[in-house]
């Protein structure tokens, strides 16, 4: 990954962190926004720093496994909340 590309991703990661902290500080009810911002950070890291965008084959497969695991967590959390 180029230096400029890495810096752009870093800027996006920091921006999403600011979104999370501002939401937590001023709008504590927006837990969903905070977690979406965190998921966005994780996705950026997975795609660009872990290099999923430039790999194929089983590396990409593992990337999908990570994302599906995130999805499993979301389904669990929402399912638990809805069926209580």
């Amino acid at each position, binding site marked *: 990954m180029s230096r400029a590309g890495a810096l752009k991703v870093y800027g996006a990661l920091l921006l999403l962190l600011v979104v*999370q*902290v501002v939401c937590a500080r001023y709008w504590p009810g927006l837990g969903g926004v905070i*977690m979406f911002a965190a998921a966005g950070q*994780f996705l950026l890291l997975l795609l660009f*720093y872990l290099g999923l965008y430039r790999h194929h084959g*089983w590396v990409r497969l593992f990337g999908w496994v*990570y994302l599906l695991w995130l999805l499993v967590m979301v389904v669990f959390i929402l399912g638990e909340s809805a069926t209580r």
Partner: protein
Amino acid sequence: MIRSDERPAEPFVAWAQQREAARLGMWLFLASEAMMFGSLIMVAWFFRLRYPDGVAEAVAGLHYLLATGNTVLLLTSSLLMTLAASEPRRVRRCLLGAAVLGVLFLFCKGVEYGLEIHEGVLPGFTDHSTWQAPSAQLFMNLYFIATALHGLHVLIAVGLVLWLYSALKRRRLAPHQAAMRLEMISLYWHLVDGIWILLFPTLYLVGR
């Protein structure tokens, strides 16, 4: 004459083959790590949904600004690890920078634990519970396990980076070996960072 460290390790016949095997092994290992921390995050969310009042009480006592600073340190260290892989002339400087940021992360975490021990909220370091709700104590147990386990991973990552830095400085690695080890250690570092990215809002931010 070909030096032995310029040939791939047995039983591989080519560097590309050895690199692919190393990548597969590393991603399998990272998958197991993601599952382990994923389970902890799911348990944290289970607590949050089942005992919202107790968890809110525990979360309100956490030092989220220190944790935010720690998140910035880890994100910056990930940037340096990416730059180390992409800029061969600055590898050692980037590795050293990432290791320093990792040590700073651990230092800040230690300060945070110290404050929590002083306030009597860290499990295992106080004789009496300061919490109104028992579920707050449960959440703090989970917080301590998850963050201590993550801290251990950061410590291992720092150790690996310093080892690579030392090996590169003494020119003990052939170019192929150095590139492969840098790639594997970067993968591990980024995953440790990724785990923190999800742990941070789950433990500190949501429901403050």
